[in-house]
Structures are given as structure tokens and as C-alpha cells.
């Protein structure tokens, strides 16, 4: 959903697993929807980890742990690998996350998050390990993400890092514009390219 980004400060939900693939974020059987119904996808985020095969809640999974809440998901390295399904980004947005912090994102999923106004924040391994530690010590640990300054801060320790974000995408996020809005203004350039490359 298009929404303006500025500063987000929130507690976090930790998922200290590596290589979380998009099949886990949203299993294939939930991809049959023909509309972008974020609530539906959000309800089924991490479906097979959140619920047991008999449909009951898996109390051991972090989304079902009442100690944790917030708009920031903190995940292990190589988050979002595998399938290109944008449904994974819709599920993350639909659940209410606005930021995902990890030390490494799979390429396609990273773009999908950005295109859905979920901000992937890439941090160093050290920052990530320290943040997991802070959250373990105090589940209410807050993190501040400043899109204008491109900084992320673990408020428990004060540790701050810059995160990569191109100026173009930063502008889009801060002004709630998407790539299609941009491309639609480029028609004459596209037609020129087509003539030239014939």
C-alpha cells in the first residue's frame, strides 16, 4: 500500500533464522487469490510455522508469543530467498510490518518489499547479532529507522548504522510514489528507444 515513509520507531519481532524462503513466508496454496487482499495474505504470513497441521496455534512460534509485537521484523541472513512471489511482501505488509531488518536480502524479494512500501533495511552482521541480543534481553527493545537520514538505531544500545537506499527510491518512499507513476511519464523516451533500436 502506498504510504509516506519518514521515521519509524517501534519494538520488534525477532526471527533469528537464516535463509527464510518465500515458500515459508507464504506457502504456495495461498497464492490462488486474484486480488491484492493484504489482510488475507497477512493472516497467512508464516502459516505453516504459525499453525500446527491440525490448525491450532503453534505457541512456540514468535508471532504467537505475546512478549513480542511491533512494526519491525528482524530476520536472519538471506531473507526472502526462492520464489519471486510478491504475495510474500503483501503478507508482510498485511500483517502490519513496515520494516524488515536483516544482514542480507534475496534480490527479487527486496524489490518486492520496496514496491509495496515495506522497507528492507540491510545492516551489518554485528548490528544484527547485537540487535537479536538486545531483543532477547528485553523484548520491548525499540529500533528507530530514519528514511531521510538513511540510518537505523538500536535504541537499547544506541548503536547506529547507515543503510543503503538510492536517492530515487528514497524520494519515492518519502513521497508515496511508485515506479509505475514514474514510467508512465517516460512514454516518449520509450518510443524513441524503440525507433532507434529497430
Amino acid at each position, binding site marked *: 500500500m502506498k504510504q509516506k515513509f519518514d521515521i519509524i520507531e517501534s519494538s520488534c519481532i525477532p526471527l533469528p*533464522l537464516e*535463509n527464510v*524462503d518465500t*515458500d*515459508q513466508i507464504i*506457502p*504456495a*496454496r495461498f*497464492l*490462488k*487469490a*486474484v*486480488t*491484492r487482499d493484504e489482510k488475507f495474505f497477512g493472516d497467512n504470513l508464516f502459516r*505453516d510455522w504459525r499453525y500446527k*497441521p491440525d490448525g491450532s496455534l503453534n505457541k512456540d512460534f514468535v508471532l504467537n508469543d505475546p512478549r513480542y509485537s511491533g512494526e519491525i521484523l528482524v530476520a536472519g*541472513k*538471506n531473507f526472502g*530467498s*526462492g*520464489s*519471486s*512471489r*510478491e*504475495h510474500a*511482501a503483501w503478507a508482510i505488509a498485511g500483517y502490519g510490518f513496515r520494516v524488515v531488518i536483516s544482514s*542480507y536480502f*534475496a*534480490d*527479487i524479494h527486496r*524489490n*518486492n518489499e520496496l*514496491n*509495496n512500501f515495506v522497507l528492507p533495511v540491510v545492516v551489518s552482521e554485528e548490528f544484527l547479532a547485537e540487535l537479536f541480543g538486545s531483543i532477547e534481553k528485553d523484548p520491548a527493545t525499540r529500533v528507530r529507522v530514519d528514511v531521510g537520514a538513511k540510518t537505523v538505531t538500536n535504541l537499547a544500545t544506541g548503536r547506529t548504522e547507515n543503510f543503503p537506499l*538510492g*536517492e*530515487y*527510491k528514497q524520494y519515492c518512499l518519502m513521497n508515496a510514489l*511508485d*515506479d*509505475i507513476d*514514474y*514510467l*508512465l511519464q*517516460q*512514454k516518449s*523516451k*520509450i518510443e524513441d*528507444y*524503440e525507433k532507434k*533500436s529497430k
Partner: protein
Amino acid sequence: MNTLFDKIWDSHVVSLIPDGPTQLYIDRLYCHEVTSPQAFDGLRARGIKCFRPEKIFCMPDHNTPTHDQDKPIEDPVSKRQVDSLERNAKEFGLNYFGMMHPKNGIIHVVGPERGLSLPGMTIVCGDSHTSTHGAVGAVAFGIGTSEVEMVLASQCILQQKPKSMRITVDGKLGKGVTAKDIALYLMMKITTSGATGYFIEYAGEAVRNLSMEGRLTLCNLSIEMGARGGFIAPDQVTFDYLKGREYAPKGEEWDKAVEYWKTLKSADDAVFDRELHFDAADIAPMITYGTNPGMGMPIDGTIPVPQCKALDYMGFTSGQSLLGHKIDYVFLGACTNGRIEDFRAFASLVKGHKKAPGVTAWLVPGSWMVDAQIREEGLDKVLEEAGFEIRQPGCSACLAMNDDKIPAGKYSVSTSNRNFEGRQGPGSRTLLASPLTAAAAAITGEVTDPRKFL
């Protein structure tokens, strides 16, 4: 610089956004039913048409049942998704090959075999295995639904230019070692994130010696190494494969095209951001033991990682050999291994043997064209004689969006591309392998080294 990737990418740049992505022109967009409906909704919401409908080809493949395709799909939710693709293709004036259409099949099998994917092109689809089309010498990569909408709206996409990597596999492959084994070996070596941020050019004698089918398998699995795409510079193998294909250029146009395609190679002094070298002689038939495709090992190896969540899920123990492990299902097919050469390999190994009792085998051609070839070559007779049945084309048990689901706790030796938790059905346990290894498992009922039968 001076890599083939640079040449193709740079010749498709419409504009560069300062400190931002590249506006890249796309020659071919493929759409399947799962990742496109919301993109078409987007066009309607914005009140715009499709910009270049003639460059776009649509076909359902993920939901299609692998039997009785002439009848309506039983699952109403799957049916709605397939129907919506047909409706959208009609409304926006796009090429459409529906179920039972002779040109239908898995989009990544159909594109190359119809000559829709050609050297030097930029090709995208809302599907991570779009990397497959790189085998013909194209820059091909998977995209999300918002990006599908970008291409529908403008025939362009905004992308950061990836870094370049060359993977050279020198030497000759041993007996029973296939393109699938090369890919599983590479993933074992560099992990599933080892090529994230890169586009791979595959090179070296072992790659050059692959048939087009083998090259399609190798490039298909680029995404499982984390790369957006992987490709192989076009050569005589490519030209021989494409010549005469329905949508490939004809006559003088063909000669002109080949002339151009011959220029599509990296310069001798090309510099890659990363170079990796491997020796084909080190590669054995491979099998996976875990829940990502990088968790693989030589079939006669022992599980090299400590006990972990993945091994618990698979019901394996650290240090265990998988040889002789009982299996329940065999799946031959998918955009990875659903081509004619894969069926030839499977048939050659099971010829004169019988399917093991207790094994359920799903043999799913990648397209109706593959199906027709199987019958033309008489492979159907060989397979039936050995107790196997050929199903109708589609993605099938690779991701189990249709009825072909592996039950919880069961083991499947699969020629597909992902062994993620629940990928082939909730609780399913997938062992990824080549068609030869799948065939050996199918006739013995257990994990078996295919070289025993060669």
C-alpha cells in the same frame, strides 16, 4: 566491463536515473496465472492499456491439473485464477495459450521450444525461474507482480544493474553426471546466497558440451544460487536448436539474426566482478538432504552438517548415508527437468526394469510439445512397459498448487528445483536429483546411485 551481460544490458537502457535504477527495455514478457492478476487489476485501477501487447505471451501452468485437462478444473479457486488469466489476456489483447492448446505448457519450457526466447533479448516473467531462458543467450530474470505491471504499462522495468560473475566448469563430465548435478554441485559449493546480487555467465568445456536442454536446466537453477539470472553465450548448439522453431526468424531474417548473435560473447579481456572455476571431473551425481537446494552432496556421500532444524524436518541424522533410504514418490518434470532429454534419460535407465512396488511416480512433461515428442520417439511405450504413466503438462508437484501433493512425512526424489519445507505439499520431504537418479530410485524404491545401471 566488456562482458556479454554488459552488451545486452547496455543495449536495452532507455535511461539512467541519477543515483537510482536503470530504465531497461524488455523484449519479452511472459505471464502465468499466479503472479499476474493483481498487475492487470493495477492497469484497470490506473485506467491504462497494455503498452506493447504483441510482445507479451500468457499461459496457465501452475494450477493446471495433470489429468483430464479437457474437463473444467475441479478446484474452484484454481479455476478462478486460470480463468482470470484468459479474461485478462483477452481484455488487454495479449497472446494466450490456454489449457489443452497445443502450445500450452510450463512457460519456461514453452518459451525456448517455440523460439519466443532468442539470443540478445531481455526477458522477464513473474517467476523466479525465468533465469531458464538465459540458456539461449538472453538476459532473463524473475520479477514481482508490481514489476509485471510496470512492463505491461510501459514495456520497461526499473532495475539496479547487477554485478557480473563468471562460473567456468572445465573438463568433461563423468558417467551419469548431468546438468542438474552441475547445478546442485555449484549450490553445494557457493550456497543458495552465493550469487545474490550477481548475474552469472556460465562458461567452460563442460558447459559448452551441454545440449540446449542441459543448458536450460543449468540456467534454470541460477536463482537457487541467489543470482537473478544466468546465461550462456550463444553458439552453434543454440543456433541449431532455434532454427526452424515457430517464432524464430526465418529466411534472410534468420541469416541476419545469426550474424548478430555470433557477436554476442564476452570479450577475451572481459573483467567480471567475480570469477569461479570448477572441474567437471570433481562432480558426481548429486542428491539433497536438507531444506534448501544448497544442502546437497554426492549421492554416495554422508550428510556433512550437524543435526539441525532441516535434518529434523527431513527425518535424517548427521553423518548418515542416504543410499538405500526408502522413498515413496518420484517426480520427473518441472521447468528444471521436464524436457525431452530428461524423459529420454529417465526412459533409458528404466528400460527393461519395473517400477518398484510402493513407489508412486509422477512423470509430467513440460509441455504438449514435449509430450508429442515422447510419443514420436516411442518413449511412452518404454515407460509404460516399465510400469510408468505419463501425465499431462504443467508445473505439477514442483510446488503442488494443483492436486499433485506429496503427503506429509513422505519422501520424494524430485527433479524439480526446491526442497523447501512443505514445498511439494505440507510436511513433504523432497530429495532433489537428476532424472537419472530419479529413475534409479523409481525402479529400486530407494535412493540409488544411477551409475549402477549405466
